[in-house]
């Protein structure tokens, strides 16, 4: 997700301005000149200035292009490029949000199994690997965190045998 510098820079200008304004409207502490508003004001201004500098390409000459180490014998096949391919990167955060919403209802074991199955499949594993992994790893994690470390993981539909 490589965006042009002008886009990220503009975003920072907006973010900085919003932060500065948000700090500006905070109520001051009575009888004191400096309150909770000063710090966001300073940071927001700084951020907006940095954003402007980035839009105008200042400091770009310092950037080093990422070096991809080529494999021997040219075995690195170029990844299949389709429009949707880039969206796969959003899968991990989406799965975490799924965990947030589903864990209390479905319980830890089922939610975790779905997460493992989807992640593993997305990374190109065959069902021979993903199915046992999805079946066993939630129990292993539950054993460590739920049983040993006493993290209150939701039981949901499928309580663990311990």
């Amino acid at each position, binding site marked *: 997700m490589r965006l042009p510098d002008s886009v990220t820079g503009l975003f920072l200008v907006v973010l900085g301005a919003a932060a500065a304004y948000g700090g500006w409207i905070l109520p001051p502490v009575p009888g004191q000149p400096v309150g*909770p508003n000063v710090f966001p004001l300073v940071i927001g201004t700084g951020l907006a200035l940095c954003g402007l500098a980035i839009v105008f390409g200042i400091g770009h000459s*310092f950037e080093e292009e990422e070096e991809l180490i080529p494999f021997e014998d040219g075995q690195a096949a170029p990844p299949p490029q389709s429009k949707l391919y880039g969206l796969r990167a959003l899968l991990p955060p*989406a799965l975490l949000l799924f965990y947030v919403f589903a864990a209390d209802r479905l319980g830890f074991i089922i939610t975790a199994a779905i997460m493992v199955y989807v992640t593993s499949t997305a*990374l190109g*594993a065959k069902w021979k690997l993903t199915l046992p992994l999805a079946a066993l790893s939630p129990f292993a994690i539950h054993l460590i965190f739920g049983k040993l470390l006493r993290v209150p993981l939701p039981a949901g539909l499928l309580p663990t045998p311990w």
Partner: protein
Amino acid sequence: MLKTLLDAFALISTWEVIIAMFAASVYGLVIGSLPGLSATMATALLVPVTFYLSPIAAVATIVAASSMAIFSGDIPGALLRIPGTPASAAYADEAYAMTRKGQAELALGAGVWFSAVGGIAGVLSLMILAPPLAEIALSFSTFEYFWLALLGLMCATLVARSSPVKAIAGMFIGLLVSCVGIENPGGVPRFTFGLTDLFGGIEPIPALVGVFAVAQVMRAMLTPEPPPLPRRKFGSIMAGQWRLTKLYHWQMTRGNIVGIIIGVLPGAGADMAAWVSYAMSKRFSKEPEKFGTGHVEGLVEAGASNNASIASGWVPSLLFGIPGDTIAAIAIGVLYMKGLNPGPTLFTEKASSMYAIYLMFIIANIMMIPLGIAMIRVAAYILLAPRSAIMPIIMLCCAVGSFAIGNNMFGVVTVAAFGMVGYVMEANGYPVAAMVLGIVMGTMVEQAFVTSLIKSDGSILPFFERPVAAILAAMAIGALLWPVMVWVWRKMKPAQTAAAASR
């Protein structure tokens, strides 16, 4: 002194500490050796586990895991030319060239041996530097703390291998994140948007887990899987290391010293130490033409350097709560949680705990030699584990671990959000380390800044009046202006060479 030392021994010679340290070492070795899983990520995922340990055992796991992971990143670097952690990237090519020349044992042995030596040199620097610095730090007022924190943040932006403007922007984003919540000078809800979950502020640890672990899984979704490791038989791994030590003792010492200095600088960590030391080794070598063809000299110096920086990174962390690198940033979070609040008084009031930390570092670095050799021998089997089996487990650990920090689901949301932020920033050349430092140091910077402003009654002058404050201020402002000077110098240089050519 002797009594404190004995107390420290008593603190670490419990089964809990010993088992925690051993388990964390194995964990660190495994995570470090897997390409794409960095030492910082190993440490971040460990944090939820440390909640349930005693303070000393908690610190022990972090010390052991981080030291081991930095060494173990050398293994795939040497065997596959894919560095296991960014700290090994500087010399992965060189180590791989040695492997192709049939010297894999020598390359990996140098990794273990000089890592251990470097680690111990780092601890010695921590033991020697920290107490006198603590004496000085006791007289610091908020002005000094403000400039020190600013200097730390500026250093973090300087050493980032990216545009300094973007690094500073990253730092500001981190500071902005730390503004959220009601823990501010006025005690009013700030940037909470009416969400009660945000009242407590954004916890640094889930943010770190998101930036370092989730973002990595996201990147893995788009990059091809690294090739499997060819299985091979190893000869003696430690053979010839003593000879190398004698031959390159000056390079080793220089690597240790550079590593220590870079570790102490806030924000610059093991990867920077390795790059600088490798470059220095090449620059000052008697045979620079051999570099890149499988020459062990650079490996010695860089290997000694990156592990030295791990221990010395704890100096500013323990003294001021200013992290020396991203791993130390995580360690600071754990220290606060465990009631070992960083600060100069730590060295007087909790001296035995400090000695315990030193001892654990030494033990971890000694343990590294046998465990590291064992790891090299089994690495081929561990690296057989496909990425599609490891990444799902990492995801589960992220979810459960971030939930465990406050036993609420908001932690998981934070992890997901910061995974996105970290991924987008990294992809666009914004260094995430600068943001992480901003998040960790934000509250402290604001406190020092606002208290100083109140004390000075709105005037700027008191910020420069005290001598130490003035020196720190000069350094911080110098660090800010440094990129400008480099830029001007670069502009001048092509003009000069062009003029010389036309003559």
